């Protein structure tokens, strides 16, 4: 258990152009650690989608990444509005993103389904007006 490495990132609320910096950093750290490329890509994509969601839907938050020999675990925590209907939000194509977000290339309603697809486990905890915590693991 001591060979677990933990990284924590602040995801700023209002800086769309910097969204994804945390995921980018995790990606290069995993590569340096010699993680198989396929697993690196899964972690990177899932975390990036989650990070973008935190910026466009939830005023930012924090991400903790735990890397152990057998898995990478990501915990994305925000104090945004929460998700009223998780099953609906998980459907491909469902999005509440406004046009200005769509013009930035997001709002296809594919983020949460992608996060599910690229991870081995995904759990969403959400409360309206309090925030959302998404935990994802990718097995190595």
């Amino acid at each position: 258990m001591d060979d677990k490495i933990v990284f924590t990132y602040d995801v700023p609320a209002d800086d769309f152009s910097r969204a994804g910096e945390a995921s980018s950093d995790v990606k290069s750290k995993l590569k340096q650690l010699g993680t198989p490329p396929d697993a690196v890509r899964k972690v990177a994509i899932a975390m990036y989608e989650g990070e973008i969601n935190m910026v466009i839907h939830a005023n930012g938050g924090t991400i903790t990444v735990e890397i152990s020999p057998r898995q990478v675990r990501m915990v994305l925590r925000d104090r945004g509005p929460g998700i009223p209907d998780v099953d609906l939000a998980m459907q491909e194509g469902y999005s509440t993103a406004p046009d200005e977000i769509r013009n930035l290339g997001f709002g296809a309603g594919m983020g949460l389904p992608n996060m599910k697809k690229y991870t081995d486990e995904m759990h969403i905890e959400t409360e309206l007006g309090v925030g959302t915590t998404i935990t994802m693991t990718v097995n190595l």
Partner: protein
Amino acid sequence: MTLKDVQMVLDARVLVGEEHLDREVRGACGSDMMSDVLAFSHDHAILLTGLTNPQVIRTVEMMDMVCVIFIRGKKPDATILQMARERGLTVLETDHRMFNACGMLYDAGLRGGH
């Protein structure tokens, strides 16, 4: 095919990464919606897009794609080009529109993913 072939098919200009034109390309994706791109799985792929913000480069980075092609009239700024340079990517610019550019590459044998 290689990035050089892609460049020739599209009469594209190389904005960044001339030194990587011998890289192999095995698939392509044309979209302005980044999560659509992120849903796509293909190694050694290229992205055709009309979106010009830093998230294009991040998406390509997360996907391990090798090249971005900006279609007619979509000019990436210096920040985007610098990000691409730092990541060892190739950036091309073509005067063809999205539909035609995709069609020309398809004709040349390139395919989309699943």
